[in-house]
């Protein structure tokens, strides 16, 4: 009984129910990244605006969502919002929670990226009579983005795994489906070993994408920023 059943493990590895969970995990991650990045960008711009009416809510937002567990945020959104007449599906609740939470981290990444672009870049833009829009889109944003890629990559890696928390409100992603399968045969290790492999594959694939992005956006800079991906243990 206590021996690891390798055949069962292999079966779970190719279990279509579990594989379906991979799709849900990827979907949650992609949606939370896009939503979180957009919202995070807005919050960062609010915080950097220099206008207290905008900056204060942004600071509060970041303080709140970075200061509380995602698990609680998800449960409160799922169980608490109906009290205010907002009824969201399980998937909608999970997405909302992940986006709101991720945005608080993205906002800080975006803000530090912009702060790291030297002031002289904006001044050069002014001296060339560039519009504020052009300075933002063509001068500061691309340089800030380059600095944001490594921390954004790490954040997305964390998000891939954080989506497993959505299982507590019964979103059927990898973790939840593992739980369900586990309850059929109680092959705890075998099921979770398969889930582990899935997560490793996903984070490793993301590492490859991140490394490419870092190369692409580091192109014109001579600074040699060390790669931060976890796969870097393979390289010397």
């Amino acid at each position, binding site marked *: 009984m206590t021996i690891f059943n390798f055949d069962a493990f292999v079966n779970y590895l190719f279990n279509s129910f579990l594989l379906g969970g991979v799709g849900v995990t990827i979907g949650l991650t992609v949606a939370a990244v896009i939503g979180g990045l957009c919202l995070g960008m807005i919050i960062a711009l609010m915080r950097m605006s220099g206008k207290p009416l905008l900056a204060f809510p942004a600071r509060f937002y970041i303080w709140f969502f970075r200061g509380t567990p995602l698990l609680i945020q998800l449960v409160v959104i799922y169980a608490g919002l109906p009290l205010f007449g907002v009824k969201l599906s399980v998937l909608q609740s999970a997405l909302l929670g992940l986006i709101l939470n991720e945005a608080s981290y993205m906002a800080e990444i975006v803000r530090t990226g912009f702060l790291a672009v030297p002031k*002289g870049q904006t001044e050069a833009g002014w001296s*060339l009579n560039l519009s504020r829009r052009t300075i933002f889109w063509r001068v500061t944003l691309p340089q800030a983005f380059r600095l944001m890629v490594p921390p954004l990559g790490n954040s997305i890696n964390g998000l891939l795994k954080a989506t497993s928390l959505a299982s507590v409100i019964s979103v059927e992603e990898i973790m939840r489906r593992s739980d369900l399968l586990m309850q059929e045969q109680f092959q705890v290790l075998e099921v979770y070993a398969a889930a582990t492999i899935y997560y490793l594959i996903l984070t490793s694939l993301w590492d490859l994408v991140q490394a490419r992005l870092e190369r692409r956006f580091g192109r014109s800079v001579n600074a040699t920023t060390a790669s931060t991906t976890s796969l870097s243990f393979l390289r010397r």
Partner: protein
Amino acid sequence: MTNSTVPAVKLAGVMKRFGNFAALSDVNLDIAAGEKVVICGPSGSGKSTLIRCINHIEQHDGGEISVNGIRLDRSAASVAKVRSVTGMVFQNFNLFPHMTVLENCTLAPRSTLKLSRAKAEAQAMELLSKVRIGDQARKYPGQLSGGQQQRAAIARSLCMQPKIMLFDEPTSALDPEMVKEVLETMKALAGEGMTMICVTHEMGFAREVADRVVFMDRGSIMEQGRPDAFFSNPHTDRARQFLSQIIH
């Protein structure tokens, strides 16, 4: 439509404060079209602040600044008009590191002046060749030497066809062997009749090119005059002291 009686730059009673600190106090300066003015003075005397107020990178707190007859009145329109006739070269070049030299030179003409890509590139190549780095156009700033970067920055400014060029210690960040090539570029520009206001401690350049040297200390213009007169016979103790420190 600049008639000769409209000064290229006119500062009247200009004040600039950073907090309680007066970086400029009651600065008066008239610069004629085509004139070459060198500004010098000890560190912290307000030289950078002065020329940065001229194109509204810093906003002055009092007095009046007019450029080519356009008064800087805090309106976005006046700022844009003034910037359309001024170019600026910075100590640290401030090239855009994520763009090639050519892209650096075409961004503003394309986005602000709405030049076509072909026109903007042709103009950029012409000016890059003029500052003798036409062959570096496709490189990124990080791949160029300091002297080449500063010449690229000068070409980038010229692509906006300014009437007045502002230089803030353009050679201070350069290794000695590269100072000359940048100064040569600036001399060539001076020879074409460009109005130039240049913060520099390159006294050789000042003697050769400047019509006037302006000496600043503690936020005020202490004295000004023709370079030969200023260097050989400064009126103020401050200027004497300053000159004895920079001429070894």
